């Protein structure tokens, strides 16, 4: 499968995530869109890991494994991030009784 297909697919998913972040005000949906973007990047990394290198000197197996382990670590970090992020959203809801991000405009002042 041409690599460009995968890149385009990832770009589409990523941009859907960006659009979601820009258009929605619900904190949880925004968070989910962020997860979507993370996943699109993961998909791209995996696709690249299966792309044979141009130079024969580099072993495809070694680089591919590195890339996939990178994805694995991203998942690890994402899991940690989600747990903390959701905790923050819960706390925010508890304080302002809303999950509308526009309530969080303290940066203004």
């Amino acid at each position, binding site marked *: 499968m041409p690599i460009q297909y995968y890149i385009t697919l990832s770009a589409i998913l990523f941009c859907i995530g*960006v659009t979601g*972040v*820009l258009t929605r005000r619900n904190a949880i949906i925004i968070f989910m869109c962020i997860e979507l973007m993370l996943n699109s990047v993961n998909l791209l990394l995996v696709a690249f890991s299966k792309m044979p290198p141009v130079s024969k000197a580099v072993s495809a197996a070694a680089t591919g494994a590195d890339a996939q382990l990178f994805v694995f670590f991203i998942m690890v970090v994402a899991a940690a991030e989600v747990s903390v992020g959701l905790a923050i959203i819960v706390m925010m809801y508890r304080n302002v009784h809303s999950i509308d*991000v526009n309530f969080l*405009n303290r940066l*203004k002042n």
Partner: protein
Amino acid sequence: MGQMNNLVYLVPLFPLLGFLVNGLFRNQLSKGLIGIIGSGSILLSFGVSIALFLQVKSGGAIPVHSLFTFIDVSPTFKIDFAFQVDQLSSLFLLVITGVGFLIHVYSTSYMHDEEVPHFARYFAYLNLFVFSMLLLVLGANYVIMFIGWEGVGLCSYLLIGFWFKNDNYNYAAKKAFIMNRIGDLGFLLAVFWLFEKLGTVNYSDVFANTNKLTQADITGITLLLFVGATGKSAQIPLYTWLPDAMAGPTPVSALIHAATMVTAGIYMIARSNILYTLAPFTQAVVAIIGLATAIFAASIALQQNDIKKVLAYSTVSQLGYMFLGLGVGSYTGAVFHVMTHAFFKACLFLGAGSVIHAMSGEQDIRKMGGLSKYMPITRITFLISCIAIAGIPPFAGFFSKDQILAAAKEVNPFFYYIGVGGALLTAFYMFRLYTMTFVGKFRGTHDQEHHLHESPMAITFPLIVLAILAAAGGLLGIPEAFAKNANWLESFLAPIFDGSTKLQKVHPSEGSNEIVLMAVTSVIIIAVSVWAYVKFKDYQTNEEEPTGFARILANKWYVDEIYDAVFVKPINAFAGFLKNVVEKSGIDGIVNGVGRLVQYSSRQMRLLQSGMVGSYILFMVLSIVVLFLIFWNQIQIVEFLQKVF
């Protein structure tokens, strides 16, 4: 010899020191001390000047001595702070310091009523004035001359506006300064032009390399220099400041008219005589302007009633004669007239000051009369000077004026006749002045009459000295017609005007003819003087306004009004336009507009900082897009976008 060479710098140094001491310690010193410092510094300069003069007289010009490098930009652009003492400048040194000293002595008495700080300020300015003039005369290049040139302009401003609480005086001071500046611009341009063409401003180099200049260059440079001279030496069209300069204390007028300032233009042209001789067109312009000024100012003087104004216009007129002399190539005659004029004009002004002093500040000659019995010394000296300026032999003015007129006759008889006519006018208004002041009945108030007295020693002493000089100064230059090689000045100054003399045609002097002419003109002048004396002997005050032509003369040909209408009013209107329209709505609009724009735009920009995370992300994404478009290969992206859409 070498020793004397090093003394040159002392001449301007003493007045400078006097200026600094008097200026800086004006609150500490007593009046006596101030007077001693002020006059003493000039006296010391005078002493050194005499020594220099004797040296020059016996051994010729002292070689140019550079004190330090004044401007050092590159090897080709280097101007030394150098002094040049030769026949011409040593003569001027004597006049400036000699007459200057007498005026200083006179001032100690004349200005005695001033408060101490102002008294000191006065002497400081006076010393600075003399210093500037000495610098002007001593400089070995045009740049040093220009420093002095500007210096005298500044000092004249300071001294004319000495009583700065009076607005009219300030106005006169400003007028003098601005008129001078107009001339100075011409001078400056001429110096630039010289430097551009020759790469040097040293007199010796410039005069040695005149052959490198084209005729157009020389004419342009000399004309521009002459513009400078018209400003400084009060010629048409820039002369109006000089009569107004009477606002200053009387000794200042004497200083300006006799020793410093107005003679600067003459000196400069005499110094550059080779350039002028090479530019016949400029010479013609100089002669015509000089002659026109001489007649014009003399005609105005006929109808003036202010004792100082009459003298002021007579100065303008006499300066016109000097320029006529320069214009017809009689440089010696011009310098000679500068000297004799310095003597009798200083004497006249100081005498006028003595009269004004006695009259408690009254300057209108219609309210004087019969002063001779109260002020014998003043009267005698004034009379001698009057005779001298009128040109009655054997007093000084006769010889110098005659030399100029004789030279003018060689060039163009027309010049001669007009010049003689001007001399008649001079005789008339001077004797009118003398007669109205000293002869007849006193026409002032009873209080003034009661108050009349002869002036103290400090005032009469300079008068006597100057009167002697005015009487005998003419002996320096006895015409060739009387005795061969009797003209001492001519031979003394010959090295300076050597180059010019060679270029000029040698005219055989018709000795007998000249003597006859002299005799005739002298008789006519004496007749006019007597007529004036008789006419005004029994002058009675009449309040009638002059009519007809006399009225035009009394109003000085309305020149001030014409200048006002032609130059001042339009400039004021233009300035008002700039102020009200361009400045207010244009410049202010731009400045305030920028401020308002920044305020407005920052108020709008502040709205971007909504504090909402969404908007920040939006901008971030947009920025990424923009960065992509900028840094990626734009052409391919554009091609792709064109394919897509």
